[in-house]
């Protein structure tokens, strides 16, 4: 097991009081696996990623839980130790390529800085390695690009450089927080192909965070669905997308316009995801769930549907045979 997040809870101190952002989240990643974390805004998916490399905002507090990286708890490490892990063991790619690079420093220099942090090499060697990593991310005429400034590159090119930066070490785990959301569909496709090939070639496992279920479809091996800071469902991607169990996942897939009949309105979940200052005792989806009953007011149990597909909901029968047993939402 490469990374194991156990019962992680995070809350934020702000003017509006204490808001709980993550509630007992558990995620695990094996070597070389590509894991998807899917959720709408406010689900806490980005917070999970930032908690792993300890880049949370200063008024965020980790209330409980552990993050075991190769069985060492990252939360108890001091700043120096964490710094050694960032980039070397765990790399990270963020959403916005436009602002992810230092605007007044050449691409090659920024790469060299990171490389020299992780490997004992001279400036010259670092520069050559920088050009090497640019080639790894399939950037044509890497020498010229390394002399350029970020504002002279397109969005897609810049995201490739950001990936090159994150894969400089190369790390064992790459966390990608919505890496292609800001890109056009055609460019997104290229970047995802690149990430997949890098993962296979260098054996790097990927924690892929997105709000786009379709992207997860063919990219991730397993997926976790998050809602309001809790994981409501998890399993192999095919199972979760084509045989969703939790009412929220089912409703989410129903509301996607892809392949739906234009004449009928989309099935919709009423209301909107919003932050709860006081956490509801029972299921987080209770306010918007079409199948809710009184028992939903206490914490829903984990119900297994097959070896690694579970959902946290009262309405789901444990290992019931055919999926038809489910009520229509």
């Amino acid at each position, binding site marked *: 097991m490469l990374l194991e997040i156990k019962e992680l809870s995070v809350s934020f101190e702000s003017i509006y009081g204490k808001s709980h952002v993550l509630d007992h989240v558990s995620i695990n990643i094996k070597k070389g696996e590509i894991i998807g974390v899917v959720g*709408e*805004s406010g689900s806490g998916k980005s917070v999970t990623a930032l908690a792993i490399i300890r880049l949370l905002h200063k008024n965020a507090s980790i209330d409980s839980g552990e993050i075991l990286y190769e069985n060492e708890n990252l939360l108890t490490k001091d700043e120096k130790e964490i710094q050694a892990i960032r980039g070397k063991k765990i790399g990270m790619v963020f959403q916005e390529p436009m602002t992810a690079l230092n605007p007044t420093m050449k691409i090659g220099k920024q790469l060299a800085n990171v490389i020299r942090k992780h490997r004992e090499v001279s400036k010259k060697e670092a520069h050559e390695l920088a050009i090497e990593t640019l080639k790894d991310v399939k950037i044509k005429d890497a020498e010229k690009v390394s002399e350029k400034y970020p504002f002279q590159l397109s*969005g897609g090119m810049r995201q490739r450089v950001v990936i090159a930066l994150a894969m400089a070490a190369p790390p064992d785990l790459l966390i990608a927080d919505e890496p292609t959301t800001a890109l*056009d*569909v*055609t*460019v*997104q*496709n*290229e970047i*995802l*192909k690149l990430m*997949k090939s890098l993962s296979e070639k260098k054996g790097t496992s990927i924690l892929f965070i997105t*709000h*786009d*279920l*379709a*992207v997860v*479809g*063919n*990219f991730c091996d397993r997926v976790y669905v998050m809602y309001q800071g809790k994981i409501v469902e998890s399993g192999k991607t*095919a199972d979760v*997308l*084509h045989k969703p169990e939790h009412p929220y996942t089912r*409703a*989410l*897939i129903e*509301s*996607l*316009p*892809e*392949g*739906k009949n*234009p004449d009928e*309105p*989309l*099935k*919709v*979940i*009423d209301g*909107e*995801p*919003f932050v709860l200052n006081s956490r509801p005792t029972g299921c987080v989806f209770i306010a918007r769930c079409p199948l809710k009953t009184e028992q939903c007011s206490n914490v829903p149990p984990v119900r297994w549907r097959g070896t690694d597909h579970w959902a946290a909901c009262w309405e789901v029968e444990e290992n019931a045979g055919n999926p038809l047993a489910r009520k229509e939402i």
Partner: protein
Amino acid sequence: MLEIHSLVKRFDDIEAVKNVSFQVKKGETYGLVGESGSGKSTIGNMIIGLLQPTSGDILMEGKHLWDKSSYKRMKNGEIQIVFQDPQSSLDPRMTIRSILLEPLRALPLKERREKGKKSNLGKLLRTVGMNESHLDRHPHEFSGGQRQRIAIARAIITDPVFIILDEPTSALDVSVQAQILNLLKKLQKERGLTYLFISHDMSVIQYMCDRVGVLYHGELVEENKTSKLFSSPQKDYTKKLLSSLPTLFEKEDQYA
């Protein structure tokens, strides 16, 4: 309803729109799809009067909207637009009531008083899924989805016949996007509206539009009925666009 003839827009040396022509029939939803920089929003801004075309002309029901340098509105409020970013399309300093009343200022007094009545505002808010109690609040007290509903209410208060939707749901969550798309379809049926739907999201276009025009670097590369375009795309760019579209269904070589 709307005819565009060889429309061109040049920003000093770059040609953002290269003689684009298409028509939108009454009651239809015409989709304009393209990636960033394809000029789709520029076309929208030219139709609504925010940007002056370099050449070519735009006719609404046979009448020219632009002649020489001035934008001749046929009747104020006939054409409306809904923008992408709910955050900046509502003035933070105004209450929802004054936001809704603003487009009425350009209408003749009789119509303005009649439409501006509190009962009418209440009815309007209910049609978009909100209620009178929200009238005296400020935009920052609402979520993205609610703000977009207010923007839609503001667009239909003058009973327009034609609405330009410039990526209305791109900034919203999936579950909220579905609510807004349903609302737009309902309004189209009830009020016989004609939409120009601008988006980069092919699956939303497939669901919402009757006919679709594909834009690439300012040029209209392909135009067809939605079902035909998705089932048998002709041009290479359209094919590439459709093949790189992420899909829920099994697709082996997607990221091979």
